[in-house]
């Protein structure tokens, strides 16, 4: 069940649009921000709030890659850019380093559920490559030292 807080926030964005369905993306974003991922029950709840079929919510959740649908992630989601500019400046090494450090493979989550590691396409921070996004924040000009510091600070 969606909490009253989440429901209230979803109702708040409805007035931004001409119809209820348009709020689908924002509704799923609010749920994910609170819970880290989106469950089947969440999607049904959003569907009834917006007056659409659950599958119409599901197709939105499945299409946009940032939604973690039925896919719990760790408390912190590390996303390393591996597109061209970052790869030219060592994104491959960065990914390898984090894999070794956290003893997981890309796509995996640490046993203590603290970190999930993913690789992503261009995040629009090419002049400060290599870079990664952890949760909503950008970390740029990465080195092994910087990564150690950043991850130590995320409990």
């Amino acid at each position, binding site marked *: 069940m969606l909490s009253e807080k989440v429901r209230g926030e979803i109702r708040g964005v409805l007035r931004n649009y001409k119809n209820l369905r348009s709020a689908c993306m924002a509704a799923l974003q609010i749920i994910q921000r609170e819970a880290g991922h989106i469950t089947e029950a969440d999607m049904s709840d959003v569907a009834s709030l917006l007056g659409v079929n659950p599958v119409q919510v599901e*197709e939105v959740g499945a299409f946009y890659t940032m939604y973690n649908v039925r896919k719990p992630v760790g408390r912190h989601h590390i996303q390393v850019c591996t597109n*061209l500019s970052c790869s030219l400046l060592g994104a491959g090494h960065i990914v*390898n380093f984090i894999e070794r450090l956290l003893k997981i493979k890309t796509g995996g989550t640490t046993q203590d559920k603290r970190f999930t590691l993913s690789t992503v396409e261009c995040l629009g921070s090419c002049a400060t490559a290599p870079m990664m996004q952890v949760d909503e924040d950008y970390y740029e000009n990465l080195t092994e030292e910087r990564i150690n510091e950043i991850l130590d600070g995320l409990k």
Partner: protein
Amino acid sequence: MEKILLKNLNNPGGHTLDNYIAGGGYRAVKEALKLGHDHIIQMVKDSGLRGRGGAGFPTGLKWSFIPKEVYPKYLCCNADEGEPGTFKDRGIIEYDPHLLLEGMIIASYAIGAISAYIYIRGEFAFGAKRLWEAIKEAYEKGLLGKNILGSDFSIDIYVHRGFGAYICGEETALLESIEGFRGQPRKKPPFPAVWGLYGKPTVINNVETLSCIPSIILNGPKWFSSMGSEKSPGPKLYCVSGHVNRPGLYELPMGTPLREIVYNHAGGIKGGRNLKAVIPGGVTAPMLIEKELDVPMDFDSLAKIGSMLGSGGVVVMDDTTCMVKAAYIINRFFSHESCGKCTPCREGTHWMTEVLKRIEYGEGKPGDVELLEGVCANIFGRTFCPLGDGAVMALRGALKNFRDEFAYHVENKRCAARGGFGAIGVWE
């Protein structure tokens, strides 16, 4: 050149309304409200401003396509900046959000829109926050909302966050996404000017395009068209990344030669090495080589030599770069971002990536380069939107200049370039 788009880049606090107004901000809205709608559209036409999202379509002409008698009308700002190598719109949004809002208010007034959306990519969480704050400030000062600045014009601006789909930068996919659907392109015609958001007339403009509007209103179209190239005037943001000494965002007159951007502004190639290739306008734009560097960076000059200005994302690669690996990374991006609507792109980009991957991994087969060319021919011009064409243009650009390197990989099962970059194989 005096900075127009990036004047607040090094100004901490420049993003706030007070600082923006102190620097002369929102004077253009006051001016615009005194002018008629048609007068503003004519000024933008006369300025020669062309869309900065990549297509270079004349902005004033786009606005003039909006039918007068149909209501409501919408303005959408395309801030779904996803072209690899591009970070210009992010710069404006984070450092000068009110410049964008001012441009949007004027554009809305000119076309008669009363609601406007900013479609910002989901990854730009900080940018979205900046926009929300700026919009809130603007409402409080009566610059947004009902009867702005005491006039009879009302305008609301909303932020719609994308959530990880490059295709939503395509204007009709962007509209689908705002309406709460999967971001897949619509058939054109009808064009958005006639059938756009919620089936109503809609203008979709890039962040950088809209941010040019306030200065055109204040300084006049002649001032604007006196900058840059004759057929693509005005200032332009160039994003430089890759193997250069000073990567960054540079505001220069449109048409600045690529050589000047790479060597003067971005400080030349890192470690004193030699340049191998440069992508001039985001990874879609076919790459150029050393002898083509004197090209002026504007829409027509780059089109003439078979590339494109695109988003102005300049990616510089030095002589240690393996072009097969670069082509593979670029193609992997397109196959990842293909929306799946049409077969040539969905299947074609996937197979291009698979073939490039095996060539890169030393598992290429004789005839693979020809196979790639065949797939390219089956995609190009046969897709619903330009994404598939983009994948082909990027690969053809690499093959045109570095075909030998691909053949070497296939034949010798290894790379001809010294070193190469990253150890991609380890984490694939």
